[in-house]
């Protein structure tokens, strides 16, 4: 069983993200209530919960994507390596270079595969010349397990790939800027089972270099890929523990109801 096979030791990993008493409001709606959580480096953390529970909202707070929504308001402390990312001096542009994100639906730019991956390094000025950029692109595509499939057609449009390839291209695009944290918002919900398996395998490898946070509506997926799991319900963080514990010995009755299929 894979659950035991991949019992990576996460105990020793340092804390990457430390969130305390986070509140999020959409206009009058109180979407996230008093959430405190500590996310570890080089670990896959899964956010699960019924739809509308706030797991995606919370994820989007971690790289301030909620800034693009006018009515969203965030309170509380979210520390990345000890620095509050909502500090007035923090530029979300710099933050997002360190906290990448992959979305529910694959959203490759209508550019070539190469340009899709090179976009991030270019805007952040990560390469000094073409050769270096080529190297970054190749490494990112290899990292996303896509290199072998596309190495002969880097000039073709990214929108021409299959759904699973598109999503891996988006992961490669996020990886290319060398982030420290990778946020994934239901990355497999638009994919078929085979593509899902490929992406899940990829997530396994990614956590060697990055801290990965994945939102998923599938408990099986959370069980398969994550070492830590947080269960959200109605804007509250109900339970946060090792994945094994959540699925075998939930402490909160709501968690138990959810994983046994009674709510959600």
């Amino acid at each position: 069983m894979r659950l035991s096979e991949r019992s990576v030791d996460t105990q020793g990993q340092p804390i990457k993200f430390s969130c305390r008493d986070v509140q999020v409001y959409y206009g009058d709606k109180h979407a996230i209530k008093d959430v405190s959580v500590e996310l570890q480096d080089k670990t896959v953390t899964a956010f699960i919960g019924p739809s509308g529970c706030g797991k995606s909202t919370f994820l989007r707070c971690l790289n301030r994507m909620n800034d693009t929504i006018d009515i969203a308001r965030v309170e509380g402390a979210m520390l990345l390596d000890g620095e509050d990312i909502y500090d007035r001096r923090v530029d979300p542009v710099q933050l997002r270079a360190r906290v990448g994100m992959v979305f529910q639906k694959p959203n490759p730019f209508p550019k070539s595969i190469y340009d899709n991956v090179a976009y991030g390094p270019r805007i952040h000025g990560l390469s000094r010349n073409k050769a270096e950029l080529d190297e970054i692109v190749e490494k990112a595509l290899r990292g996303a397990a896509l290199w072998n499939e596309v190495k002969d057609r880097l000039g073709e449009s990214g929108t021409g790939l299959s759904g699973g390839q598109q999503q891996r291209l988006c992961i490669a695009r996020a990886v290319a800027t060398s982030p420290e944290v990778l946020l994934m918002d239901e990355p497999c919900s638009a994919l078929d089972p085979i593509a899902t398996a490929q992406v899940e395998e990829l997530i396994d490898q990614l956590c060697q270099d990055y801290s990965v946070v994945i939102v998923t509506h599938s408990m099986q997926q959370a069980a398969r890929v994550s070492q830590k799991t947080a269960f959200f319900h109605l804007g509250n963080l109900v339970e946060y523990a090792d994945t094994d514990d959540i699925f075998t010995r939930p402490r909160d009755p709501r968690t138990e109801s959810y994983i046994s299929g009674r709510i959600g």
Partner: protein
Amino acid sequence: MSPFWIMMTVLALAVLGYFLGAARARGAVGGDIRRLHSRPVYYGWNAAIATAAPALLVLLVLMLALPLLAGEAGPGASWLPGGAALLVAAVGLALALARTTPQYRARAMVERAIKVALIGCSLIAIATTVGIVLSLVFESIHFFQLYPWQAFFFGTEWTPSFGGGSELGMLPLLWGTLYISFIALLVSVPIGLFAAIYMSEYATPRVRSVAKPLIEVLAGIPTIVYGLFALVTVGPLLRDWLAAPLGFGNSGSSVMTAGLVMGIMLIPFVSSLSDDIINAVPQSLRDGSLALGSTPSETIRQVVLPAALPGIVGAVLLAASRAIGETMIVVLGAGAMARFSLDPFEAMTTITVKIVGQLTGDNDFSSPETLVAFALGLTLFVMTLALNVLALYVVRKYREQYE
């Protein structure tokens, strides 16, 4: 009797038919209208339509045909359309009444007639296009019989004189048209595009709700107003503050004047089209770019605009077609001198100006100086049509991409 009164008589007969038809239907079932196929009003309408529709059609056709037949039939035939129409109306009324029986499917007949009328109205769009093409082509053929087409399309001299010996080369007019349109696009495309970008990507809802309608006001202002603005305000302003001090001559009417004012006119056109197109770019692309740590302006320049490019090209083509066909601004702002020059502060003229010039006032439809306007019109029509078709095609392809 004048056609107007014949029409009135026919309509009166139709009203009569309405009441007779309805009454006859009621009478046929002894007032128990449940035994009728349709409600009595439909029998009334059926009779009215049978009376008026064929009669009015006959009247219209004969009225149009009469001037063509006048040569043979002589003026004595002027009673023909009216008489024929009244006869047809009477026959139609009688037939409709004779057919009014409880089994008769009056509603189906009325609805069929209405549907025919609806189709007839829809065909007016095609008839208009056909009318435009025919009137342009016929008179242009006339013109090319009097004046060689090579000299028209490739001639570089425009010196019409009604005494004869005119040079009617189109090229200087085409040059003026394109030059002015180019300047107009140079003004309107950046301003319209940036306005659209700011409005759709940056502006708060409150700013948008004020600025957008205000810019749209520019689109509602008639072109004659822009023309007067060019003639009275912008022309002298450019001449006194720019052209004259810099030694570019002192003409109030100039390519610059017309181009600048036309550019202002096109700003709302470009901005509202671009706004639609930019909004059609999926939000997920913006999210993807922002999540990689790009600034909003990088997102717009490197992701949104390239994605929207085909649509924006379509919008610019439509704007170019507008600029080429625009008349009043150039009539009042550009001048009437046909010439080739690169100096934007010189007066030049356009195809539309010359169409107005050659067709205003008393016209002699047998002289090439008048008929040339139709050839110019044909050129203009073909140019704008090509631009429109191309633009609509590009925009449609673009929309399909994100649907």
